[in-house]
């Protein structure tokens, strides 16, 4: 068209969401634009005014305010505002003032609505208040459908062979040969009078190996019932879990086959081979290498492999849960192997003990830049005079080893080497009770770390007991939860980004942002408070959030928003670390906004906003004295 404004078109071609529009559409939009200039300090939109135009900043900068005058956002070239009023056909709610001399391109409501209704990408990008954009941005990545993101059900190609318990081993072997499978599930005897709970349908599994080692090798009769040789402690996986999780389960339980359940009905069986076909290089091999390392030097040499595994998962578009749990499994394996080596070196422990992982490892949210938070729980017969020399040496060996393997010493001294954190079970129980009943600023910080605990070695049942104790004491304990909530508000997210700066809520600007301190950690803190208040069982933030959502203590939709926000912030942090590794730099948690894409900036801003709102809600919900 002859009247196309080339400068306007060029500008749109350089900025999302316009750059994604078809050329013709883009020219059409450009040819209908209106333009306005605002001197610095001049109001652009005032509260309550009618507005039927969408503002795109061509040059300059503006500030958006809340009704009460609080700064809501600062926007620069390529950013836009005013869409909310157009979409809802309502007067201006967020006044806008020019911060610098500003030139804006204005798009009329009709054109805007046309784009919004007909171009999905455009709508996704623009939609600010509807948080679904964040969800889509997380989902887009999963759609890339790499092996790591595949669900277990994708591995299933046939229904499992299920036989009744009265079947003889020989009959079972015939059926397995006919079906060409290496394992068979054994069901409970059908009994119409006794309708059992669904998850008791399958009572065991028999594999090729069982027939060899439990029947042939033992010289049993071929007509023995399958129940004689089956494995009855069944570990199973849900069909919606990730292949990666199935792999972790096999590893953890040292099994080669997993029944796949869908709503507790068996729909398939997957084997170790099935997974290996999918995964050639993964953390499984790193874990194997860890357990075959013969000394600390060999363990320390695996650091590169751990980082390689991390990078690979990021590049294969694993989500933050998969990466976090893989890194936690690796971290746990290092501890376990170091403890094995320690026991070889110092001899068996004089009394039972349990080695605890705390914080992100316990939550299965570990990344590569992490320090070690750990502790030792000792048997109640612990006598410092007699036993502590051994456990002190053990703790030092493990913590020194972890430091060499890339898990730096905890600067806060939360390690088993610290005598305070190397105590018998009864002392731990006193600690925790004391912390909940009489919280102080110091013990609240402890609670935030120690209340995410996981037993990695020894008497793991003690870890479970401590977890139960915490659950019981904190559940609906409004006084303690109010303190925890206040403590969780100490770290806040920034407001967003402006040009190449991070913008704080008071308008201050800084050059970088620590994504752990300002992002993932405050979310984890917040979720912990809610989880404690509903007595949730899980430790992983996503699992906790699931319970919290089920408990319906959050306003509708907020829990899902929070989940998406956590996933997005975590992934930005993870990708940033992987990028550092690719660039052969030492990874860290600090992100400079100049390295963020427009897409990441927008979504991060949304995520921070969700976190900020969630913090406000938490503050309200856990007011001291408020009945829960």
């Amino acid at each position, binding site marked *: 068209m002859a009247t196309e*404004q*080339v400068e306007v078109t060029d500008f749109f071609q350089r900025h999302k969401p316009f750059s994604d529009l078809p050329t013709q559409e883009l020219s059409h939009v450009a040819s*209908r634009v209106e*333009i306005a200039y*605002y*001197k610095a300090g001049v109001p652009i939109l005032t509260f309550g005014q009618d507005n039927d135009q969408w503002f795109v900043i061509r*040059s300059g900068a503006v500030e958006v305010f809340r009704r009460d005058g609080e700064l809501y956002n600062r926007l620069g070239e390529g950013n836009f505002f005013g869409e909310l009023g157009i979409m809802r056909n309502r007067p201006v709610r967020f006044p806008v003032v020019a911060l610098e*001399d500003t*030139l804006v391109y204005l798009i009329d409501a009709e054109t805007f609505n046309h784009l919004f209704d007909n171009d999905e990408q455009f709508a996704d990008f623009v939609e600010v208040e509807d948080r679904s954009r964040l969800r889509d941005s997380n989902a887009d990545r999963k759609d890339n459908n790499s092996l790591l993101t595949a669900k277990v059900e994708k591995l299933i190609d046939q229904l499992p062979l299920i036989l009744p318990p009265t079947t003889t081993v020989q009959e079972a072997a015939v059926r397995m040969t006919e079906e060409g499978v290496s394992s068979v599930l054994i069901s409970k005897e059908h009994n119409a009078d006794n309708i059992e709970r669904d998850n008791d349908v399958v009572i065991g599994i028999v594999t090729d190996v069982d027939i060899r080692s439990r029947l042939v090798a033992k010289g049993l009769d071929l007509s023995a019932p399958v129940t004689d040789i089956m494995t009855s402690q069944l570990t199973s996986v849900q069909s919606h879990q990730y292949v990666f999780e199935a792999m972790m389960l096999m590893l953890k339980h040292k099994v080669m086959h997993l029944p796949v359940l869908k709503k507790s009905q068996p729909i398939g069986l997957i084997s170790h081979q099935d997974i290996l076909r999918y995964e050639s290089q993964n953390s499984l091999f790193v874990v194997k290498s860890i357990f075959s390392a013969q000394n600390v030097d060999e363990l320390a040499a695996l650091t590169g492999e751990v980082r390689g595994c991390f990078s690979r998962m990021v590049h294969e578009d694993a989500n933050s849960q998969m990466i976090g749990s893989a890194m936690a499994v690796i971290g746990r394996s290092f501890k376990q192997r170091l403890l094995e080596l320690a026991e070889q070196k110092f001899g068996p422990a004089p009394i039972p003990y349990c080695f605890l992982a705390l914080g992100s490892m316990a939550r299965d949210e570990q990344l590569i830049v992490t320090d070690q938070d750990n502790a030792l729980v000792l048997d109640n017969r612990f006598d410092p005079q007699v036993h502590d020399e051994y456990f002190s040496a053990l703790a030092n060996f493990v913590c020194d080893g972890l430091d060499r393997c890339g898990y730096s010493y905890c600067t806060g001294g939360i390690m088993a080497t610290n005598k305070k954190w190397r105590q018998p079970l009864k002392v731990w129980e006193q600690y925790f009770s004391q912390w909940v009943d009489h919280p102080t600023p110091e013990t609240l910080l402890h609670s935030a770390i120690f209340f995410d605990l996981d037993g990695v070695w020894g008497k793991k049942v003690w870890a479970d007991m401590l977890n139960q104790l915490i659950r019981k004491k904190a559940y609906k304990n409004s006084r303690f939860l109010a303190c925890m909530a206040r403590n969780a508000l100490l770290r806040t997210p920034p407001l967003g980004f402006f040009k190449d700066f991070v913008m704080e809520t008071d308008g201050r600007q800084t050059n970088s942002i620590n994504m752990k301190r300002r992002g993932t950690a405050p979310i984890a803190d917040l979720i912990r408070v809610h989880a404690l208040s509903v007595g949730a069982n899980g430790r992983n933030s996503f699992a906790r959030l699931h319970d919290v959502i089920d408990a319906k203590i959050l306003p509708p939709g907020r829990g899902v928003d929070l989940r998406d926000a956590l996933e997005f912030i975590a992934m930005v942090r993870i990708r940033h670390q992987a990028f550092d590794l690719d660039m052969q730099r030492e990874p860290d948690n600090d992100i400079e906004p100049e390295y963020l894409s427009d897409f990441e900036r927008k979504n991060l801003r949304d995520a921070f906003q969700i976190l900020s709102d969630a913090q406000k809600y938490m503050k309200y919900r856990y007011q001291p004295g408020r009945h829960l």
Partner: protein
Amino acid sequence: MFYLDKNALQDKPTLKPLGGQFDWSSEFSKRYKNARYPALKQYYAQGAVSADTPICDVPLVALDFETTGLNPKTDSIVSIGLVALTTQRIRCAEAKHWIIKPDTELKTKSVVIHGITHSDVASAPSFNSVLDELLLHLQGKIVVAHHKDIETRFLNSALQHYIGEEIVFPCIDTMALEARFSRTLKRTFMRSLLGKKTPSIRLTDCRARYHLPYYRQHNALTDALACAELLQAQVSTYYPDETSPVSAIWC
């Protein structure tokens, strides 16, 4: 077309210099009676706003020509760009861009500047075939140009050539405004004392002074837009209340 300097224009303006309080309304009714060419008659029929109309209420049209050279007598128009505006809004939907087959030879020297080539103009319409539509876009509005002499002289020269009539209209010259704002005697004197250079009033430099983005020059439509934005910036800087009468800035 902003690359000319004043000395390049060899003859005097055909219009007498007009004061800010000039009564354009009666000038237009007089000319309406005398005009013969229908579209021109129609143009004058729409009248002109009175001198005391607030700037913010005046319909405006930014106008720019690209030409084959510098002399209206020997050179002619190759491109016209215009865009309608007020001091609050520039309306790209009411913009126009013509490539014109020049009456005189297209010189290589100018091709280098505006980028319009011989093959571009070969199939282009002649000036007289777009004249009526051009006048339609100008009517009822005040013309805004950066260094208006180019537009007024070339337009008059073309009108003389095709219809044997002249056209006069009130005009806002963003270059003259900028000179007024930035080159007052006192300032110039102070600046010379301080050894500072006189500020440039070229379009791009003016725009930069108001933090307007850089636009590539010498596309008639882009230049018209650039000029329109500049006027908005000038008005919002020097007449922020926008109730000042248009006579303060027209000539």
